[in-house]
């Protein structure tokens, strides 16, 4: 299990940022995808926007974007939001795979 996955399992959503060029590597990796520099782990800033949203059997799912580059799919509570609306991550975890729960700000 990677650091990303083990942190997610604890409910902490982290991102890898290059210690050399400062770029965020997403999806997470042990090395910077831009300059192959070392990366450090930090919490993702918990303020994002909706990119798109749909639903299945009443369960709403969407693509959320954080820090301008980190896109993840998760469920969202409340009415179906529109692109550009601000969201935050309420909960996240890792069972068989990662999962995220958003709410509209």
């Amino acid at each position, binding site marked *: 299990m990677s650091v990303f996955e083990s942190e997610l399992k604890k409910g902490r959503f982290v991102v890898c940022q290059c210690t050399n060029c400062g770029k965020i590597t997403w999806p997470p990796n042990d090395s910077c995808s831009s300059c192959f520099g070392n990366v450090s782990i930090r919490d993702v800033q918990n303020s994002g926007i909706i990119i798109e949203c749909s639903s299945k059997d009443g369960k709403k799912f969407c693509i959320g974007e954080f820090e301008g580059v980190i*896109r*993840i*799919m998760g469920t969202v509570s409340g009415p179906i939001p529109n692109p550009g609306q601000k969201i935050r991550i309420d909960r996240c975890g890792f069972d068989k795979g990662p999962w995220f729960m958003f709410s509209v700000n």
Partner: protein
Amino acid sequence: MAVAGHSTTKFSTDDTKIESLLFSATKSLFKQTKNLSQKDVDVVLVSTNDNQKYLAPIISEMAGISPKISHNIESMCNSGTNAVVTAFSYISSGLADVALVIGAERFDSPGHVLDWDLSRGEFVHPVFWASMFTKAHRRKFGTTEEQLAYVSAKNHRNALDNPSAYDSKKYTVEEIMNSKKITDDLRLLDCSRPCTGSSAVLLASEKIVKKITDSPVWIRGIGQKTTSASFTRGDLTSIESTRDASSQAYHMARITPDQIDVAEVHDAFTICELMVLEDLGFVQKGQAGKYVIDMYNTASKKINPRGGLIGSGHPLGATGIAQVVEITTQLQANAAGRQVDAAKLGLVQNMSAAATSSTVLVLEA
């Protein structure tokens, strides 16, 4: 370089071993390609997402071929066309003169789940990314549920003339629009179906091809592009990988998209056909819905004459090869009831994993 032989087995949901599927397509190709013998084959490539190992050497042995080069190629839904491009490369480099490319998949393939991608969270099934594409396209261009349904109606109708199609059945637009809702944006009949099937093509160099067939179909253009593996980038209303790959293929073939007579495109979901037609440059962005309705109303078979993935079924590793087989058959004027009149220039577009990777081929009679 040209396509010198081909075969496609009947698609189904049969519980058939992957080796048997691959062998069936190989045997059929040899039976249909009279001047071909096993010793002619320099390369054997197998396209599949199956977990079985060492399939290319296994099939070579089963078919009595001792190739110089044999290996598998896996690239999700795009495996088949990736394998054709690899075969092309072996021949154009001079390492080989004749390459056999065989693709197969079982209905329960592990390739149906996109579980490597952390960015998808718990939404690992393709219907979720397709719903995102659909919603975004509808929002930006006003694409309607009816326009999406016409894609499915057209392709199911075309598949009625395809003897290899899995369970072909004609559906009305109304039946499609009333089919089971899978997500807010897609219904059951908007989706292609996983199935069991296999297909094969033989590529040969210019110096050899006339010894094998009197009706070669020439590969004039190739383009490939991978933008990412994860569903993390780009505009959800446009397929960057297809735009880039088609630009490369048109440039290599020295053609423009309006010259294409017939095309097989990757309609894993109805929205995919609309987006691909726009990103291939066949129509302006946002106009593919109307274009498909016109094709339906005029009984045009220009796009997906065999029924595409929606009409024929989608055995992942075989799909790209079956697309090449269809365009070859069309350009050889052997497509019977689904024949496009006077087809001289054809196109294949295939893609994988939420369109993160695309291949475009241009073929000429």
